[in-house]
């Protein structure tokens, strides 16, 4: 009997240990201080960092197999985003500025985006200073009559309006969500508005070559050329930021880029927008006012435009050289179905291969592997999704208008598709993390109340009855014996009284909330509440699990 008894005792002891020793709220604790909402990463540098020159072929080799394989073999740590504050949010920095949802953005602001200076279309003629003619791309640099420098892009004849419209629409959205982008303008020009400058002539551009190049671009019925002018970013460009590591000569760049939520959280956003041309080349750092500012550029291949330009129906579903699924297709003789099967063009001018029916927010792939986005976790994706869900239908419609599509049906189609994809993205990622947000403490005379919003209910993504299991722990992770079940409030906003721990002077209390919906208990959100020095009770930290 003795061994059996010993086994029983050990079992019970183990059971007890499982309930008590490992706290269900984890070991993370926060300082009893207000969350930080701005990062001081603008310390002046003694000298500008070196310019990074992107090497596209090496980038492709590394993306396709070299670095991709070694990265997989490194079995890197699963790291929570490093550039987040105690609320798991991204504070303002040289990378990101909280905009929509945090600040009121009027429709006019959304339509204008970052464009605060006069449009170059009002300051012609333009003097061409450089050109890129060849392949499927055609672009010039020019100075307008105010001597400001821009990059000039067009639509190719075979896909009229699509590239410039996609660029402007996505540009405005990305700015509204908080990213830094240049000032980009859309309009029409006459051939006579373009003057070849001395620099361009020295590089071999002449009237004949310019005319030949412009033969390839889309023109309106009246001969006007539709064009997109992107202003050079302020300061001195120093090349793109790396998709891995950081700028070692920039002391402000302290977080590995693949650990930045700012970048990892782009996954749901760019999946939504089908911005498959995601690569280092489409980022730019600028040395401005003594520090580095980080920009996203060039969105013209989004909204399914790259699929048309490259003639690639798999774009958005596979990397350009995606060996594992290609091998699978090889061995299954191409007989297995694919998500893109049956995806067709709409026939609407200015619309890429872009729909909602064949979209799965969790399966999306950029044209080449881009590590930060590939490294996203559920929490990064939740953050990105939360941002994009803030754009309301009428705001999206207003932004799409900025694409100046000649066929109103095209604008309507893009708006509707964006809305459908937005909601699909919301459903997908809000199902993978307890979608509770906007936590706040409302203090009354008697007891504090914890308020929060269930984003799934808030956006009417699901309508199932929902309750929240809430319990509380002290700083040491010991249960305070406070536990309640609360039904969701209307529109997903719920407030409930909570009992705080009195074991610490600052009443540090950890509240665990679990969403119960459709017979499923979601992983919890753990909210840390404490009294600040000024006596206010505040949510001082938060982690989703």
């Amino acid at each position, binding site marked *: 009997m003795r061994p059996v008894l010993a086994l029983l*005792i050990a079992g*019970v002891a183990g*059971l007890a240990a499982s309930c008590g020793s490992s706290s269900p709220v*984890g070991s993370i604790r926060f300082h009893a201080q207000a969350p930080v909402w701005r990062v001081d990463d603008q310390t002046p540098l003694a000298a500008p960092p070196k310019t990074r020159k992107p090497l596209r072929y090496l980038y492709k080799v590394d993306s396709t197999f070299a670095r991709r394989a070694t990265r997989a073999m490194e079995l890197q740590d699963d790291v929570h985003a490093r550039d987040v504050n105690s609320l798991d949010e991204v504070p303002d920095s040289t990378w990101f500025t909280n905009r929509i949802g945090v600040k009121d953005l009027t429709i006019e602001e959304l339509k204008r985006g970052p464009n605060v200076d006069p449009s170059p279309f009002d300051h012609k003629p333009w003097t061409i200073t450089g050109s890129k003619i060849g392949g499927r791309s055609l672009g010039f640099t020019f100075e307008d009559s105010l001597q400001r420098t821009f990059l000039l892009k067009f639509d190719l004849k075979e896909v009229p309006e699509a590239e410039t419209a996609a660029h402007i629409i996505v540009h405005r959205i990305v700015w509204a969500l908080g990213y830094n982008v240049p000032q980009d303008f859309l309009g029409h020009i006459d051939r006579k508005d373009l003057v070849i400058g001395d620099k361009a002539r020295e590089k071999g551009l002449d009237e004949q070559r310019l005319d030949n190049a412009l033969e390839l671009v889309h023109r309106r019925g009246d001969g006007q050329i539709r064009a997109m002018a992107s202003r050079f970013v302020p300061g001195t460009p120093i090349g793109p930021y790396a998709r891995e590591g950081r700028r070692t000569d920039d002391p402000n760049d302290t977080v590995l880029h693949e650990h930045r939520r700012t970048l990892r959280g782009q996954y749901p956003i760019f999946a939504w927008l089908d911005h498959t041309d995601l690569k280092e080349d489409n980022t730019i750092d600028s040395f401005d006012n003594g520090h580095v500012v980080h920009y996203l550029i060039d969105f013209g291949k989004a909204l399914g435009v790259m699929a048309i330009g490259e003639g690639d129906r798999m774009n958005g579903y596979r990397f350009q050289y995606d060996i594992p699924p290609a091998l699978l297709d090889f061995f299954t003789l*191409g007989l297995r179905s694919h998500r893109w099967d*049956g995806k067709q063009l709409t026939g609407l001018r200015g619309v890429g291969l872009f729909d909602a029916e064949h979209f799965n927010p969790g399966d999306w792939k950029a044209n080449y592997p881009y590590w930060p986005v590939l490294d996203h976790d559920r929490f990064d994706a939740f953050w990105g999704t939360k941002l994009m869900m803030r754009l*309301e239908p009428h705001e999206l419609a207003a932004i799409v208008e900025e694409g100046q599509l000649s066929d109103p049906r095209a604008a309507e189609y893009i708006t509707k598709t964006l809305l459908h994809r937005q909601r699909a993205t919301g459903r997908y990622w809000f199902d993978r993390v307890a979608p509770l947000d906007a936590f706040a403490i409302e203090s009354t005379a008697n007891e504090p109340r914890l308020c929060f919003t269930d984003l799934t209910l808030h956006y009417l993504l699901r309508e199932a009855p929902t309750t929240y299991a809430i319990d509380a722990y002290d700083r040491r992770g010991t249960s305070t014996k406070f536990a309640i079940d609360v039904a969701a409030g209307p529109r997903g906003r719920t407030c409930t009284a909570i009992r705080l721990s009195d074991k610490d002077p600052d009443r540090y209390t950890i509240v665990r909330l679990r969403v119960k919906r459709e017979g499923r208990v979601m992983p919890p959100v753990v909210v840390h509440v404490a009294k600040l020095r000024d006596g206010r009770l505040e949510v001082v930290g938060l982690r989703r699990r």
Partner: protein
Amino acid sequence: MNRLLALTLVLCAARTATAEPVVVVTDPPRRSEPTGVEPVPLPPPVEPAAKPDQVSGIAVDDEPRTSRAAWIPRALLFVPRLVFWGAVQPVRGAAYVYEKYDLRNRFFEATFTDDRRFGAYPVAGYNSNFGVTVGARVLYKDIFGDAERLELAADYGGEFLYAVGATLTTGNRLGPVRLELESSIERRPRDHFYGIGNGHEIATPPERPIDARVDDTAISSRFRQDLLRNVGSIRIKLSDAWKNRISGAWMKRELSRSPDTSMTDDKNIEARYDTSSLVGYETGIDNVYVENELSFDTRRPTTRFATQTLDATGWLVRGYVGMARGVDNDPTRYYAYGGEIQRYFDLTDGTQILALRVMVDAVGGADGRTDGRIPFVDLPRLGGSEYLRGYATGRFRDRAVALGTAEYQWGISNNASSYLFYDIGQPLASLTETPDGPIRMGFGVGLQFHTKNTFLARGQLAFSREGDIHFNLVFSPAFGRRERAGRY
């Protein structure tokens, strides 16, 4: 014991006890439309800003999310990772150098004029039957502004001891009519010969050289062919689908034993075949061939979302007649005829394609063996990487050949597709006579690589019914057009 258990359960139960819910509904959030309601705004930024290392507000960090035991697989993968990383450095280095030093532009700047119309550049190729060829090209494009083109070529190695040639095409200068003139000299030291007819292949050399006129026993042999080729063609585009092509070739050929010293001596044609029975071998060949071919071609891709280099639907129907005559005392005298039908079926959105082909090539007017009128190098052939795959190049030749192909192609990525093929074919003494010998069958699988507008290469593994295995690396698609004038 029971008390301990009870205590444990009480402790656990206490954590899940519920209290009376207290729900307070606040006012609707600020942005309250159902599909886009904004939660309570985040607090305004707090000044001053915090340094990057103070942003998280974390006093005590959480447990790492990665297991501590991860060092074990990391350690196991450390060496493989280093080895792999070392192995890919040449590729990375090449990519780095290519772009860092802008080799593409430097190449064009060094080899072409500024307008890229005239230039000279080196080339290299590979043929799995013959090996590596290196050479050079001089190219003059768009000579008078209408895609006229002059190309001078020189090659060494592979199938050639050396080869030089010139080709001039009129491009779009003459509208629907395109003229092409070609002149070349080739020294081909290792061409294949397996006899004439449908005989079985033997591995052991016969005691006596085989008389190919009466004995169709096949054995691998090689011979040298030195040729001067002058070809002219006029292609007339009658409509989008209909084309007519008139071509003519004057060829002088000297045939002899292969000079390849790397080859065992008994593999030479003279050790294995009675070359006095092979028309033209000892006397050389000096003849002219003229042909007219009419074709109806509607083959095309079905979608912009597949490579434009591979057809997915349509028909190719073509037929030709030609005749050859000897020059001076050359006894050549025969006529040639044949045709081909190809049909492509798009099974799924241009990415799964079934291609069918039947083809016949024949020569007539002489018996091809005994009357000395048809040089053996002019006889239609089967075998190689396109026509009756699974067999060696030139494995079969006779007065007629018939070929049937079924090929299933499917896309596996934007830049690659694969295919399964099944070829059947037979060399025939005559199209009107009962076929002699077995029907030959080849089958296999291939991978082809392309960009949107350029075919790059295909590699295929082909098997024959008799157990031959051939790997071919080819830089042109299967189902290409078969050139006869000056090519057989």
